């Protein structure tokens, strides 16, 4: 259950971030070096936040071998 909850929030966060990059017209200016660095940093940040969301919501639950524990 926590897995689904985490994946849903990760999806919302990723979609919001991509929309923001689109509204900033990142898809047009990606060949400008400063833009490319900023886009890369933003994408890395999105990924790291996604991982942190997953850890904080699921905790150790997905790793329990027996779910009744």
């Amino acid at each position, binding site marked *: 259950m926590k897995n689904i909850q985490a994946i849903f929030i990760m999806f919302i966060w990723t979609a919001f971030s991509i929309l923001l990059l689109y509204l900033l017209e990142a898809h047009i200016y990606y060949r400008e070096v400063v833009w490319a660095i900023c886009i*890369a940093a933003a994408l*890395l940040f999105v*990924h790291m936040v996604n*991982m*942190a969301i*997953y*850890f904080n919501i699921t905790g150790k639950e*997905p*790793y329990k071998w*027996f779910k009744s524990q």
Partner: protein
Amino acid sequence: MKTFYVNARYLIVPVMTIATILGIFIGNTFAWLGVILFGANTIIDTLTRGIHLRADFDDNGNSFGIKRLQYAVMYFMLPAFIFLQVILAWRLYQYTAFIPFNDFSFFGIPYQDGITGFNLIGSVLSAGLWAGLGIIYGHELSHNRKEGFLTSRLIMALSGASHFTYAHVYNHHLDLGHEDDPATAPRGRNVYTHAWLSHAGQSQYSYNLEKEKLLRQRKSFFSLSNKWILGYLYSLPSIFLFVWAGGFFGVLSLIVVWSISNFLLEALNFMGHYGLIREKGKPVEHRHSWDNDNLFTSWFFIEIGRQGDHHVRGETYFWELDDVDAPNYGIGYFSLFVLTLIPSLFRKFTQNLLDDWDRNKATSAERKIANQFSNFS
């Protein structure tokens, strides 16, 4: 002659990685060379499944392995994998900039300028597969200190998995065969679920490790002393390269390359310990890992398949690892990987092996945990 034979046999991956880079550079259908080599390796591995060799030592018990040469090769793999990404980025640039098709030559090597969408897919798959297979060097160097450890972090960062280096040494090697180790797959789990859980679990280990460390040091989590953050920052140049070279297609390609390479890494973890159990607090022994040590797997994967010995003697050079009568699948990694892709087939294949492990290798406490799996299923 023996020294040459023992050292040269571990050069399959470097040679094939260079061939894959050349294939992407030459372009046209050669862009698929990495995929074709992967397929050919699966056939060779299956054909040589019955050949198992021991480690080679001279009469005085000294290894024939040349440490400097083997380490030079492992360090060389970092620039090789960087070049693999650069050459793929160059092809992405050509595709997104609509470079017209022309035949050229570079130092006598003919290549085609411009690339079709189909051959670009071949380039991406080739790069992903060989970045994944190359992770064996990131693994081997993770067991070293200082520059070896850093090189491991940098190699893994090319696949967005720099956290692996810490988690592998301080989590996987210590907690093996127990639910505290996310890289150990319990019975019944399939390779697809395991790939995500193991990847995320190892990152989580590094995240928690740094969180607790920085709290003790009264430092902010958001600092460059945070090795979890630093590890991801090592991946920034790769992301920049693909964003700049291909925009949306570049990001999509990087996601595919990272997904394939991480999937291959986690598939190795999956095959290495699937279903084996260790009681918490008890020492790691040979029986807690699966060996895959047929001839081609041993040479190709620089003896990573000798997991039984590796997990008991983690600091041992790979060319000195030997058969220690650990549980053995009897087939190589390439053949077994194909089976893991079909979970029902893999479970059927491993059932007898696990039954045998339960009967003949497990302690009574381990057998009790194994029975809990049977009760659950």
